[in-house]
């Protein structure tokens, strides 16, 4: 029996529960290791007038202070556009932007030196909001567009038109292990760097380029991460480079570990978005045209913002057929740390807008939004082409709608919500069902590749290395399962090695939910290469001229640790015996595998193509209760139903669904980034930035998967599962909007993301006061003018 399809615990579960699993800062200190700290910009926008390091240098225990002038190679880097500095040179563009790297024998000395660095700045007014950036015409990259049909015609002929604007705030990744790296200098120019990174190949590259050495001098390693969620795709570059620069200059190992406060203050987050939309629809609620202009708050450098915006546009349809569309996406340059990847990668912001629109149409037409969502959903045979021209193939979206409506008793509970709201003077209930269709593949075509190294040792045990990194998502156990099944052996014989650029070169970040797809397929390819040689050898071993059995690799079976020829099953070899014999017969027992995703392409200029290998889809129903006097939100029940293909490991995958969903719930409810007017983050630790805790889990939480008989592609017919469930959180947000509609009379209640208690109470108050029309104000990131320290 194979192991794929079984719920097998996480690769590191034992290490996790005993505390023996090591993360960067758990690695024992080398004898002469240095602590790395940094000194950052005291303003969000300004020019350095003077920088005096003299006093700091004199602190006992300080080994070195480094500025951009000490960087031997390039000081500039960037995944898409090279526009970001490791260390600010003159201009500082966000609060805390690193200017000086401090290396010291101990933390105390490093902290002391940091306090003694003297800087004077010419301060400029920071640009913090999208509005302001638009006014100043500050952008990152070019405006993107996707168009189809004749929007103007649709607007002219529409029964109804609604327009408005929508704001979704950013979100901190809040991985528990803050950014961390250790650099070990080697002989001559050699540098080994261990970092908590989703992207070891990029760390290798930026370290080499920053130090002015070849990529071949650098080995970049990641054993595991204490969470990442996109926040360690590009943002590890600066801390990793800090450690590398210190190691380069001092020839001593150097360790950087951000405090949670620093990490939250200076690393990028999910982008805040402002969207202006106009939608045309029929009397029945069928959308005939949509214009949506998306503006994201990109921060001070491009990072991945343009790719994120691209994904927003590619998900503005979510699960709905939009015959006539004009979508545009503009990334605004502001004085925040460069915003970056976060689970969903722009998808959530795109989907939120269309889900908002569907709620609004439903409220306007006084219909159940569920019926409108069904009406507008992509069809199977027709109405199944996305605005960018890709066919939504092998879809079971309508079945998902039906099955979930039934299993969650949607209609009956909806009626109960209506009657509750007629009765209660103190609380409001709301309910909504939202679907999710998420495209799988990097939209940058060349990233869709992976390689793997599989080595079988003489005792029949196997080491597997891929470019995929383990951040908790369970990649390693899934690859072990895939490899175990290829050789028909127990999992215990297979080990996943730390991700290292020494073994896997030019790898893509573990991102876009594609970790298992790319690396699993690459591992499979390597296994098949070795298997071919092994099976050929086995076929010769089991052949018998006398019995008339000639060597036939097709007749060889590898299962349950045993190898045999199906024509003579009484003769068997243990897998390890076969391996030893094969070794002695000079058979190659190692292989490199390679995989590239077939059949995908996208033309950015025209906004057309089939960028995705397939779609992962799902649906969610949420029911919420709101306290009318405080805005306090309680999630009563959530039902999730997902098509994730044939799960390689259902235990791991259910964890991804539950965890991704709750993370999204945080984004749409309680997680709120608040800044001071000078651009400094105020909510920079869990005291003030509230991610969901165990009490915030819905009272009833049903998470299920559904079989998709049409899905035949991808590794072991599985589907990517990392990001998609996050976007089901929109059901919770839509349920709040639904609740507000019961008290808003003939108005359509406005509701931004996050629907914090404060946001909800504000909207309730507006609902009670008809003199204030909904949507009369634009919304942006909350900027606080008075700093309060009363904790």
């Amino acid at each position, binding site marked *: 029996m194979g192991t794929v399809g079984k*719920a097998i*615990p*996480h690769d590191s*579960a034992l*290490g*996790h*529960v*005993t*505390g*023996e699993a090591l*993360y960067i*800062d758990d690695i*024992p200190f080398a004898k002469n290791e240095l602590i790395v700290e940094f000194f950052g910009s005291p303003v969000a926008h300004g020019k350095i007038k003077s920088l005096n390091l003299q006093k700091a240098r004199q602190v006992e225990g300080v080994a070195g202070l480094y500025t951009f002038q000490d960087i031997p190679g390039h000081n500039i880097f960037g995944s898409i556009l090279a526009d970001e500095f490791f260390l600010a040179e003159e201009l500082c563009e966000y609060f805390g932007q690193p200017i000086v790297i401090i290396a010291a024998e101990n933390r105390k000395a490093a902290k002391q030196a940091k306090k003694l660095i003297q800087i004077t700045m010419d301060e400029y007014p920071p640009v913090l909001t999208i509005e302001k950036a638009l006014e100043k015409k500050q952008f990152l990259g070019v405006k993107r567009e996707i168009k189809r049909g004749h929007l103007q015609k649709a607007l002219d002929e529409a029964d109804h038109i609604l327009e408005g604007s929508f704001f979704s705030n950013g979100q901190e990744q809040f*991985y*528990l*292990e803050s950014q961390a790296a250790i650099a070990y200098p080697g002989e001559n120019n050699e540098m080994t760097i261990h970092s908590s990174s989703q992207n070891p190949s990029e760390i290798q590259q930026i370290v080499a380029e920053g130090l002015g050495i070849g990529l071949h001098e650098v080995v970049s390693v990641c054993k*595991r991460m*204490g*969470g990442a*969620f996109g926040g360690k795709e590009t943002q590890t570059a600066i801390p990793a480079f800090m450690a590398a620069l210190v190691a380069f200059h001092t020839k001593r190992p150097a360790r950087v570990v951000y405090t*949670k*406060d620093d990490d939250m203050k200076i690393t990028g987050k999910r982008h805040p978005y402002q969207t202006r939309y106009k939608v045309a629809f029929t009397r029945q609620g069928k959308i005939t045209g949509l214009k949506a202009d998306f503006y994201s708050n990109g921060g001070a450098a491009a990072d991945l913002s343009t790719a994120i915006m691209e994904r927003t546009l590619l998900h503005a349809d979510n699960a709905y057929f939009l015959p006539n569309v004009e979508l545009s996406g503009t990334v605004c340059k502001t004085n925040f740390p460069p915003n970056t990847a976060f689970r969903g990668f722009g998808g959530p912001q795109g989907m939120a807008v269309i889900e908002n629109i569907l709620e609004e149409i439903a409220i306007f037409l006084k219909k159940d939004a569920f019926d409108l969502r069904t009406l507008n959903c992509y069809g199977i045979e027709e109405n199944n082409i996305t605005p960018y021209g890709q066919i939504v193939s092998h879809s079971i979206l309508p079945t998902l709608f039906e099955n979930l409506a039934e299993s969650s008793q949607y209609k009956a509970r909806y009626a109960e919500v209506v009657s509750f709201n007629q*009765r209660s*003077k*103190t609380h409001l209930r709301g309910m909504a069902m939202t679907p999710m269709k998420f495209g799988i593949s990097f939209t940058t075509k060349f990233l869709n590749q992976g390689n793997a190294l599989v080595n079988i040792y003489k005792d029949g045990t196997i080491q597997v290395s891929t470019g995929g990194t383990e951040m*908790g*998502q369970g990649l390693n156990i899934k690859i072990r399962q895939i490899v175990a099944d290829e050789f028909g052996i127990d999992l215990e014989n297979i080990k996943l090695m730390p991700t290292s650029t020494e073994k896997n070169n030019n790898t893509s970040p573990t991102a876009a939910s594609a970790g298992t797809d790319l690396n699993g397929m690459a591992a499979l390819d390597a296994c098949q290469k070795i298997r071919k040689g092994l099976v050929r050898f086995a076929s010769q071993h089991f052949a018998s001229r006398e019995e008339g059995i000639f060597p036939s690799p097709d007749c060889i079976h590898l299962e349950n640790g045993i190898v045999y020829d199906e024509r003579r099953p009484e003769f068997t070899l243990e897998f390890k015996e076969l391996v030893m014999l094969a070794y002695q017969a000079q058979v190659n027992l190692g292989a490199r595998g390679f995989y590239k995703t077939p059949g995908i392409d996208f033309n950015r200029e025209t906004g057309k193509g089939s960028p995705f290998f397939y779609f992962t889809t799902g649906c969610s129903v949420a029911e919420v209760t709101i306290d*009318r*006097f*405080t805005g*306090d939100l309680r999630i009563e029940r959530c039902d999730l139903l997902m098509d994730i293909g044939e799960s390689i490991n259902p235990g*791991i995958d*259910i*964890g991804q669904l*539950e*965890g991704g969903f*709750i*993370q999204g719930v945080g984004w749409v409810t*309680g997680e*709120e980034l608040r800044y001071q007017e000078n651009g400094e983050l*105020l909510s920079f*630790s*869990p*005291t003030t930035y*509230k*991610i969901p*805790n*165990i*009490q*915030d*889990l819905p009272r009833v*939480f049903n998470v299920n998967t559904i079989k998709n008989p049409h899905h035949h592609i991808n590794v072991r017919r599985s589907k990517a599962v990392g990001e998609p469930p996050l976007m089901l959180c929109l059901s919770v947000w839509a349920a709040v909007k639904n609740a507000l509609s019961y008290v808003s009379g003939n108005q359509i209640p406005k509701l931004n993301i996050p629907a914090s208690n404060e946001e909800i*109470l*504000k909207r309730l108050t507006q609902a009670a006061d008809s003199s204030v029309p909904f949507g009369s104000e634009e919304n942006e990131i909350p900027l*606080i003018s*008075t*700093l*309060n320290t*009363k*904790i």
Partner: protein
Amino acid sequence: MRDYVLLYINGKRHQISGERVFQPLSDFLRYDQEMVGTKVVCAEGDCGACSALLGRAGDGTLNYQVFNTCIAYVFQLDCRHVVTVEGLKGHNGLHPVQQAMIEHFGSQCGYCTPGFVVAMAALFEKRHDLTEQAVRDGLTGNLCRCTGYQAIINATLSIKPDTVETMAERFPALPMLDAFDQHSQSSVLIEYPESIQGKTIMKRSFIPSSVQEAVLLKKQHPDAVLIAGGTDISVQMNKEKIDPQTVIILPDTPELRVLELDQENLKIGAKVRWSELEIFCKDKLPELHKILKVFASDQIKNCATMAGNIANASPIADSLPFLFVVNAEIELTGIQNKRWVEINRFFHGYKNTDIQAEEVITQIRIPLPKPEQFLKLYKVSKRRDLDISTFTAAILVEMVDDQMIKDIRIAYGGVAPVVLRLAKTEAFLKNKTFDLENMRTAGKLAREEIAPISDVRASRDYRLRLSETTLEKFFHEVSQTE
């Protein structure tokens, strides 16, 4: 006088002195002892990644409770036994919570997991059966960003309490209790010279053995910081907001540990921990109990005290509005005498109290609400549980014939530099009919009486709104309209 802290870690005895006691236990574990299973994320007691079990002597044994090692400095931990994740593995291999977490997919990235398994283990120390709500309550102090918690709840509920080897069984208590007995009679002074920028100052940590000694020390060291649970002071030290030269740890004397109901008064000693009060007031003061449930995590409640909450003088301290409306009194002990101060006169301004240089808070006396009084307490925060309040309120009303307000006391927190009694609103409502219209008018008045600001937790506008709507909410709750 002793010059070291006696601390057992996973059954091993440590005598720690000098500079090494002036650090959070989490740093001591990770960087001094190289026990890196305990993780540090926030260094402020809000994530639970650093959780460990704290064994304290009581009833002839050691009782273990979960606590945050990042906000417990080594100097506070004299005569304690700490069990870390490394010590959980028992005589029969993995602790059942560890095994269950593996089997139920309770870990993903694993960074929060050591903290979780320790907090879970604490739930089984009494071998009680657990409801799902009890599991949630017990794990409120632990954040996980990966799992969405469901798997962790499932893992915890799968454990049979009677199969769990408790810490008292795992680590023989007697040798440690004996050592604690021998040590706890003597006072402790640990000092070390710290040089910063060429200047040397003597850092000191005192553990007096009586209240009198504590008061004397406070007189000798006027700038000393007094520590009961230390859950707030430690955060300020970790974040480098304060760097006290001298700390004085309040001792666990019987006087400071008193917790009793004396006729109509609840007496709470300054070293009574919130978790003890929570159990004690469950039936006697259900409204306070309800707030204590959401007020903080077990980790915090197992260390923090009401006296600390009061002395800290934050306008958003969760206990204060309640203490204001019931007219609690605070006992201040000086060198010569004791005095009682009404809480309504105790705060002079933001973080400014009536405590004199040579006084310490020793007790709080709370008159219990009478049967004819209705008491309601409110806490509004960004997240319902384990969050610092945006707004707090306490309302105590006494009615005649269920409809006329005879007396009403309203206290709001988070709306001004200090907790406020709303004198004008109270005066307006006195002798008025208890109806929605009057409460709404009162809400408008309440708005006028406060001066909230916008900050990281909420806007001024939200707080103004809450000051109004809370009175309406109170009306509905008392009159029991749904």
